[in-house]
């Protein structure tokens, strides 16, 4: 595995992969991250993946008797990286997300269709047919950065961001698609909404998605959306 290691302050290490957004790098990130998490060294706070990196946050108090704690952690990581085979595959779940497209729940669907020079129905069709993967979560609790959008329906961000976008809104920004996990201001083109909660503290698993998940969007009607919510 071709990676480099850098201090991210005195209580974290940043592992850098080839700096690109690709399926190959995602697989490397996921495989190394999963290997470290399965191992769960006692000094590990958490492993946080980026597009092409993993930040390893560690508990320096647990390493207090080490001569050079940073060296101890990076030596462990290097050894771990050696054992991880380069592979395009990694353990991946598939999560299906229902979306009610257009209308009040997707006010920008027409604008996206116009930008692409196709009908709204065609945008819906193409949006459902993408091969989607969650690269990472961030920006808000449970907010996924999803790659794999059909470039023909890519659309620029809104000129004037909305002050409040409801949780569950499905949007497009450039070649990314995403789902708002909480209500927040935002500039994405909103083409629909899911009744599924991406972040719910009442649930045992508070976060619906994890980095590395495959996603399938499927279309539901307004009526089904309302029934789901009840």
């Amino acid at each position, binding site marked *: 595995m071709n990676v480099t290691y850098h201090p*991210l302050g*005195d209580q974290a290490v940043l592992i850098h992969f080839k700096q690109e957004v690709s399926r190959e790098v995602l697989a490397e990130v996921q495989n190394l991250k999963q290997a470290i998490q399965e191992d769960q060294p006692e000094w590990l706070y958490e492993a946080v993946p*980026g597009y092409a990196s993993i930040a390893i946050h560690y508990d320096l108090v647990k390493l207090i008797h080490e001569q050079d704690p940073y060296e101890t952690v990076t030596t462990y990581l290097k050894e771990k990286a050696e054992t991880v085979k380069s592979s395009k595959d990694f353990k991946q779940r598939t999560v299906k997300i229902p979306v009610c497209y257009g209308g009040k729940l997707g006010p920008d669907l027409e604008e996206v269709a116009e930008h692409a020079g196709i009908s709204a129905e065609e945008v819906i069709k193409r949006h459902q047919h993408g091969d989607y993967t969650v690269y990472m979560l961030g920006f808000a609790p449970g907010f996924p*950065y999803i790659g794999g959008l059909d470039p023909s329906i890519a659309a620029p961000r809104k000129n004037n961001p909305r002050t409040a976008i409801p949780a569950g809104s499905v949007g497009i920004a450039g070649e990314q698609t995403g789902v708002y996990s909480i209500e927040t201001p935002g500039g994405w083109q909103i083409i629909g909404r899911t009744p599924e909660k991406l972040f719910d503290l009442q649930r045992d698993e508070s*976060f619906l998605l994890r980095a590395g998940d495959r996603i399938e969007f499927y279309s539901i009607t307004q009526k089904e959306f309302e029934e789901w919510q009840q």
Partner: protein
Amino acid sequence: MIHVIEPGLLSSIQDNGRRGHQESGMIISGVMDIFSMRIANTLVGNDENEAVLEITLTGPTIEFQEDQLIAICGADFSALIDDQPAPLWRPVAVKKGSTLHMKFSRVGCRGVIAVGGGFDVPEVLGSKSTYLRAEIGGFKGRGLEKEDLISVGKRSSESERIFQSVLSEPVQWSVSRAYTTEVYDRSVMRVIPGKQYEEFTEESRACFFDQAYKISKHSDRMGFRLDGENLECGLQGNMLSEGVAFGTVQVPADGQPIVLLADRQTLGGYPKIGQVASVDLPALIQKKPGESIHFEEISIQQAQALFKEREKEWQELKWMITARLEGLDG
């Protein structure tokens, strides 16, 4: 119950942070000044990472509806308990019906109040910390407001013993001023070069360590914005988002650095010129907007050696506090 008469500028419940969920986009939050949290909790017989009330620039006025054991640490807010000066860095027994009144912080920016038994608010994903923007955790997910009533947990036997003892005879000692001064009295922040340090122009790198930076008034629990010469980085706008940490100094396109603090996002897309050493974070977060700081380069090994030393001092201090508290007549 604790009755909030005046909330102060920003008073929120914080502990050591919500760890283990950054991968899911959940920020850590937590107390800004870990140093004062640990001491305050130890003084009242709590676990050192128990939730405390963090106060900012202007402190609150609160009424105690039951007898409580408290410790106030961090910045000096000229606190009064029933119009008498309240000692800092010391366990204090307050009687039912007493009022704690705090003013503008004379020295420093942030203080903490620990109560014996801790604040009785629900843990969310393993932490009592308040994540203000997402309205999660702490007291109703927000800073304190007028007329709030906050429950206090039951005192542990250790905490109760200290309380009874201090109630019958107030202690006359405080945590050594020499020790707290050593931690806080510093305006030169030691910095480990960041991941993208080499990508900054030579002038910018030199400038970063030469000039004084003023802490902007647009600073909060998320980060301190700094005013100074613009810094230039060749990578600007061409970086993939990656993990950041408490004390990361990142430089957005406008060239003015931001030091990321307790409420930082989990990921950042700006070049990181440096990272403030953990031992200097308590001094940094005590700076008020308008105050100036400098940066000084150190290595990762030096930063960790300083951490070890600080941790050893803390364990010694904790031992001394505990020994003193055990020596109290109960």
